[in-house]
């Protein structure tokens, strides 16, 4: 198992290196620069700014300098927010986005697994069609539609919940978590239904039923563990996706997370910020994929046996 993890980590290094290099040169080849603004910038001012941010150096020197800083964990100063480093901005946004992602994923798991298992117990009946139909709607409904809809219902008409903010008013974390989690809940429902259907037709389940175990014990003790493997495999990339893809929800609910910086950095040509967020998120994606592979392997006795054999 350790060898497997070690190999996967080793493979990640060239992947991340390619991401850094490609991003570095791509952002600089995009038209427009970080200091272009609607009001013309005086040439002498532009020169001073470029000198302060080392943009006056030849491109390869900038690249080498960036890699040098990066190896010390320094992502550089933000161009758009003078006085702030990219590390600091990521550091302030990550806990918020991670918290939002965690709530959204918890919501998605709770609703998704319940619906999926429920549907799998009576396949091709109304008990199956209704939750799966709702899951289809959940997948199709974009968050920029669901978010404002929830806000209108729960925030304005019913006046139960705050409609924006994060940690400012009690209950303001609920609507964004549900909005972000819904699409994932729908995916999880479909995955757990498929996983459960496969497991429920296995011989050992039939044995368990034949032994006279009540249905709920068959499901929870025997079927769930195997039935949820596809869900677990989905969780790693899903969490990374939540971290990278919460831009819309963060904008609708005015949440001070990473997503807004990630998208705006590109519009602002904030080179260091674009690179910082890309490097950071690509590392996270690689890392979470690894974790979900490890968990899936650990849950699946057949794979576990392979690792023990020294695969």
């Amino acid at each position, binding site marked *: 198992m350790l060898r497997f993890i070690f190999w996967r980590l080793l493979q990640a290094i060239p992947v991340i290196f390619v991401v850094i290099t490609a991003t570095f040169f791509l952002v600089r080849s995009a038209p427009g620069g970080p200091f272009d603004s609607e*009001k013309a910038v*005086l040439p002498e001012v532009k020169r001073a700014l470029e000198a302060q941010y080392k943009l006056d150096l030849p491109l390869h020197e900038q690249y080498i300098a960036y890699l040098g800083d990066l190896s010390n964990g320094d992502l550089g100063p933000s161009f758009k927010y003078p006085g702030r480093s990219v590390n600091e901005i990521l550091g302030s946004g990550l806990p918020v986005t991670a918290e939002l992602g965690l709530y959204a994923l918890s*919501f998605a798991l709770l609703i998704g697994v319940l619906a999926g298992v429920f549907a799998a117990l009576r396949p091709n009946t109304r008990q199956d069609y209704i939750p799966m139909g709702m899951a289809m709607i959940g997948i199709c409904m974009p968050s920029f539609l669901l978010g404002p809809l929830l806000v209108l219902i729960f925030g304005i008409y019913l006046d139960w919940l705050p409609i924006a903010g994060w940690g400012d008013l009690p209950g303001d974390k609920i609507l964004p978590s549900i909005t972000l989690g819904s699409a994932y809940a729908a995916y999880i429902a479909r995955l757990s239904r498929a996983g459960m259907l496969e497991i429920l037709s296995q011989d050992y389940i039939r044995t368990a039923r034949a032994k006279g175990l009540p249905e709920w014990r068959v499901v929870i003790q025997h079927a769930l563990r195997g039935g949820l493997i596809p869900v677990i495999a989905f969780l790693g990339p899903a969490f990374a996706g939540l971290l990278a893809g919460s831009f819309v929800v963060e904008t609708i*609910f005015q949440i001070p997370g990473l997503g807004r910086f990630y998208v705006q950095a590109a*519009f602002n040509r904030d080179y260091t910020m674009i690179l910082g967020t890309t490097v950071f998120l690509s590392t996270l994606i690689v890392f979470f994929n690894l974790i979900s592979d490890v968990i899936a392997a650990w849950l699946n006795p057949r794979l576990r046996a392979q690792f023990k054999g020294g695969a």
Partner: protein
Amino acid sequence: MRLFQSIIPASVLMALLTACGGGESNVESGNRDGFLHYGNGAEPQGLDPHVVTGVPENHIIRALFEGLAVKNPITLEPEPGVAERWDISDDGTVYTFYINPEAKWSNGEPMTASDYVWSWNRALHPDTGSLYAYMLYPIVNSEAYSKREITDFDQVGVKALDDLTLQVTLNAPTPYFLQLMDHYSSFAVHPETLLKHGKMTDRFTPWTRVGNIVSNGAFTLDEWSLNRRIIIKKSEHYWDRDNVALNGVYFYPTENVVSEERMFRAEQLHYTQVVPLDKIPEYRKQGNTSYVQAAYLGTYYYLVNTDRPPVDNVLVRRALSYALDRDTLTRTVLQETAIPAYSITPPDTLGYNPPKLFDYDPAKARELLAEAGYPNGEGWPGLEIIYNTQEAHRKIAVAIQQMWKKELNIDVTISNQEWKVYLNSVSQRDFQVARRGWIGDYVDANNFLDLFITDGGNNNTGYASDEFDDIILNLAPKAKSRDERYGLFYKAETMMMNEMPIIPIYTYTSKHLVHPSVEGIYPNLMDSLNLKYVKLHPGRSLYGEAN
């Protein structure tokens, strides 16, 4: 399985949280405690007056800092700020500011004239890279210093005669100079504080952070949570603290205008930065509406590249302008939130009114187009309008495209470009017609007309006239009276508009939602808000009297 088990309690907890909520709104608690909840449009880039540019930054900086003279929120005339009074020499070129002995930094230290000398040295120093350095260019030798033509700041026309007397010498009488003293690029910063965190010209030191920053305005910085909120509180050392009614202000980076409007409706905000266009008719229908609209010192126009056919022909440019029905455009597409414009300077800019050389006249437009060689649009080579990606710009471009098709029978394509790509196209003059807006930095026609100086950085049209340059750069600054000066502006603007290097479309308005409990926010041409004058009245609610 353990993972699954730990997730269930988390989700249950979340469901329980659903039961709470709904409690006291920001507006209710704010009215009780004297805190204004202010939708500020975006996260500020920073709070260093000599480094940042932008409207959200301006709102916060002008609450934390104060200039030598400030604008009266109703008349926009200068009134005492840090300087309790000032003298202007008879020839209008020497300003002597007498600093209020009660003016203090937020750490209790007195403000001095030498703080200004130091701060303006910083603002003008080429290494600082201040985008607004040019605001101080009326001062003798400041431009040369900023362009590194001279390196001795003593040669610049700013002197501290004693601790409380600052003398500023200008190149020419500059009627708007006092207005510039209320622009953040001319504000003083606390030298010791900056030097504690870096060199004078450093752009990215943490001196503006909570706990570090020393400022001199009515408020001090209390909390700065990135992209979440900024809280400022009433300053104990501000000279006019007895007249400051608010205990503090919460600024929210309300980037999403639709969310901002919803926050206002849910009483999470007292004040919004903008109002979504489609909501305006609804607000207008309400009696005693929260919607406040006022003329704004800015013009929305199309830049024309006078070197690219077919718009290199002045007849074509005029035809396009005559065929544009601005009244219909502002009434329908813009929901009466804009005023038709026929020149670059907004009407009544401190008493100056621009010439109106044309009107909507489709017959005349067709005649001009025929004269240019395209009768009824025949032989028309095509034309492209570019704009930065935004729904509002697209709607306007589509309407104009249809008007030109209908009146002139010509085909025009419209294409959107991402913001920085668009800026690049405009500055490289890689366009035929490009959308553009200009918001005045100060209330004076000069701020609009000097855009069109030959090869000026913001000209971008190819318009070049020695006579125009001479009026703007030499004759108007030396004018003896306001009438003479405005007469010269009128002449220059007429010359320019006859050549039509731009197609003016409309004059902007400012649009806000203001909660009924807020008093002291006065609509004005600069959309300038001095938070020191704002008062809150508990008990007033959006939905009738509160309980």
